[in-house]
């Protein structure tokens, strides 16, 4: 038992270091390739701003991943939130933002209920809600972008306090909040327990369902919040928002140490993962790499992240956690070491 705990600790240190290595490597690479523009104050400022939107979503996703679930609907919720924020501006900015955040909470509640009460596997459940919310967004926007009407609202997304973009400030606040929540509160520790070993958690009296439920609510709320900020930044909403977000933030969290199997992950890791992927996109943009090639490169990296994580999960962590493919069959005890 002690051996396994040590192996687990070692692994989380290793993954933490890997992401840092990757990050440093990317930064060095792009600095060398494009020194002036990459390391310029303006670019760093832009990257800091861009990172904020995705990190906020990633924080919510992280909680769901830790609890052993997954939330594919984050992109659609973000897009719908942006649409509501822009579309309802006629009723007042405050009302529009409140409506968008409320929508996020409602979708989160819905996801939570379908998963915990309907007992539908998170992947499938959020695949369904992703599609439904996407359809709602298309219906509401009539497939048109919605321009903003209130000029001062853009300050949240586009403004800065000194050199620091406002979204980055919001992101930092949330990072601290989530970190404290996950690390220092019973709520957070139980979340890890639920994801790590549902059966043990249940026996210890922790109601897995309740934690998974709140995880989904938090995830959708974060997506909605990010959508509001994004709408503020762009001063409009388009139907293409959030289409790559789900896979992006999931991969980022995994890069930072989270796992599909649940029970692990950290806010810092999630942030570093988002940062690495954002720097990658930023660097490629500065090198004027054609958009479609960027897409291909990003896809390859995402596949690699998921594949490598899975590979290590089964060879290194196999004894530490129960494997479950979409939640279907469960390998109870490894009966033999034999693999073909």
């Amino acid at each position, binding site marked *: 038992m002690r051996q396994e705990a040590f192996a687990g600790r070692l692994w989380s240190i290793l993954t933490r270091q890997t992401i840092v290595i990757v990050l440093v490597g990317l930064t060095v690479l792009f600095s060398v390739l494009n020194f002036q523009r990459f390391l310029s104050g303006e670019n760093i400022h832009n990257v800091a701003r861009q990172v904020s939107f995705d990190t906020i979503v990633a924080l919510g996703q992280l909680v769901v991943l830790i609890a052993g679930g997954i939330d594919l609907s984050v992109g659609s919720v973000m897009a719908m939130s942006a649409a509501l924020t822009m579309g309802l501006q006629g009723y007042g900015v405050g009302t529009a933002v409140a409506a968008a955040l409320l929508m996020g909470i409602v979708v989160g509640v819905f996801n939570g209920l379908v998963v915990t009460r309907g007992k539908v*596997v998170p992947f499938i459940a959020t695949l369904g809600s992703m599609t439904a919310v996407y*359809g709602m967004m298309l219906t509401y926007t009539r*497939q048109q972008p919605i321009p903003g009407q209130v000029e001062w609202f853009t300050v949240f997304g586009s403004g800065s306090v000194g050199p620091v973009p406002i979204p980055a400030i919001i992101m930092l606040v949330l990072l601290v909040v989530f970190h404290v929540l996950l690390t220092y509160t019973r709520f957070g520790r139980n979340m890890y327990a639920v994801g790590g070993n549902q059966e043990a958690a249940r026996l210890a009296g922790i109601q897995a369902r309740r934690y998974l439920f709140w995880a989904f609510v938090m995830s959708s709320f974060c997506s909605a919040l990010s959508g509001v900020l994004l709408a503020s930044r762009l001063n409009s909403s388009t139907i293409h928002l959030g289409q790559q977000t789900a896979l992006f933030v999931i991969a980022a969290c995994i890069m930072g140490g989270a796992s599909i199997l649940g029970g692990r992950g950290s806010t810092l890791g999630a942030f570093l993962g988002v940062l690495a992927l954002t720097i990658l996109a930023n660097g490629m943009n500065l090198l004027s790499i054609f958009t479609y090639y960027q*897409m291909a490169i990003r896809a390859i990296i995402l596949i690699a992240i*998921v594949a490598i994580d899975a590979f290590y999960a089964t060879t290194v962590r196999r004894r530490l956690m129960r494997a479950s493919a979409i939640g279907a*069959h469960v390998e109870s005890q490894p009966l033999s070491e034999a693999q073909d």
Partner: protein
Amino acid sequence: MSIGHFWRRVRGSMQGQVTLLLMILLIVAGSFLSPVFLTPRNLLNILWAVSVLGIVALGQTLLIITCNFDMSVTMSVPFVGIVTVGLQIAGWELGPSMLAGLLAGILVGLMNGLIVVLTKANPFLITLGTQTLIYAVALILTQAKTWYGTIPGFTVLGRGQVFDLVHYSVIIFLVMALLLEFVLRRMPYGRHLYVLGLNEEAGRLSGMLVNRIKILTFTFCGFTAGVAGLIMTSRLNSTRASGAMGLDFDSIIAVVLGGTSLFGGSGGTLRTVVGVLVLGILNNVMVLAGVPYEAQWIAKGVVFLFVVWADTFFKRH
């Protein structure tokens, strides 16, 4: 034979009832909405419209029985078309270009299989990744433009009919479904698939070459995507990277509607034909009812969730 045993058997067959109920409701709604709804011509048209989806769903069925998924079909189907038409534009003959397209589909399936099986990664996420990758490659090749077929005989596959009544693609779909059902029920490979879905460890211990079977199934799904891609491209005589949006989702709904459980270990391709048919009827009814394109996504999402919930409710307990 207790009450509990009896209740469990009833519940097991209930899931099929849900779909049948849905189909009856839809047919009733359809016949209210339009006088031509129940005509054989309309039904055959529906079958023609869903034959592409249906063939993809057949490959998806085999995967789902083993607890795997292929989300990359949305992009591999058009990609097959892009390869085929691209080669035609480059001067290739009809036959070789279509074979090359089919091969492209097979290779995509093989790639999916190798990555998912050898790393034991989550098939959803991996195939979502390969979906994006193939989309990127398709966009790079086509520059987001539509390509048009250049060989006149190309459209025979997708548009041709037997006796001016039943389309070739419908026949291909139904024949494939029957053949696969036979393979699933009677041949060792098919039976292995069910075992893998129910208890992979047991299968491995009894000597099944688990990895090889799974990779083969992924490759076959790529093959069906290839066939579907050829038919779709031939029907439209054109191809574009985003030509099959929503196919991943639709194929999974069709399989679940048909009664194959997402938890693996049960189901079959004949059921998938039913599921595909119901989905086709649903689409037809929505169009007749004037439901706008955007709202169709909502309807599909809701239907999907409901059917999946029913699947979980009736099967898992």
